[in-house]
């Protein structure tokens, strides 16, 4: 009986002491080198970002080492724009992504083609002398 009581008290104390410590590890100074590399574009504003956003961005860095160089490049290029979105916009983007993932591959390919054409048209309009199409990011 005494052992069980001690066990319960120890568990509660551990939970109460570990959770705040875990929250404190989210400041930029305490990030791992890998996390800093992945989130480098946000280094300046990291400590001012809302806690929930930092937590989610830290979640994305878990898969960062497994990304291809092209994916890493895209990730870092989009990170700043992503962090500037409002929570509602990010939620909408997630919903759209989930909906598109469920769409048939041919529909998805069609959309990609359409986006590529739009990008090319935009690029041609901004620099008429350049014939090189813009790479899709």
């Amino acid at each position, binding site marked *: *009986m005494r052992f069980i009581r001690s066990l319960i008290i120890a568990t509660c104390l551990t939970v109460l002491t570990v*959770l705040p410590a875990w929250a404190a590890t989210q400041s930029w100074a305490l990030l791992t080198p890998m996390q800093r590399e992945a989130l480098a574009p946000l280094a300046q504003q990291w400590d001012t970002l809302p806690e929930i956003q930092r937590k989610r961005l830290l979640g*994305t860095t878990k898969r960062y080492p497994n990304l291809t160089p092209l994916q890493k490049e895209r990730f870092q290029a*989009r990170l700043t724009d992503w962090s500037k979105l409002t929570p509602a916009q990010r939620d*909408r983007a997630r919903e*759209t*992504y989930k909906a598109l993932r469920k769409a048939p591959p041919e529909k998805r390919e069609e959309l*990609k083609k359409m986006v590529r054409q739009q990008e090319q048209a935009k690029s041609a309009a901004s620099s008429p002398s350049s014939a090189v199409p813009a790479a899709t990011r």
Partner: protein
Amino acid sequence: MKNNLNHHSIKQLLDHSATRISPATLAQLQRSRVHALEHQRLHRTAPALAWLGHLGSHSDSSHTSKHIRWAFAVIFVACLFSGAAYWQNSIADRDTSDVDIAILTDDLPLHVYVD
């Protein structure tokens, strides 16, 4: 004959009777009263003292230790619920992070998902 008994007359009768009680009986009554009052005082303080006393002991017989067991059970259930909520929240966060990284590394540009 009409017997008029009001409380004034009852009081007078009782006072008259009390004056006829022997000093020995009065002393006995006084001792009994003091004893009864002390007994009552002990009854009032006993549970609080018993609770303090049983905090560090193993006695399970008292109803106080039953309260302590209940308190621990409530704390345990609260911890269990917090843990479950935290775990569920972690899963939701992990799913969101998976979607986020997929958007951030996808072939399609960001504005496709936002607009």
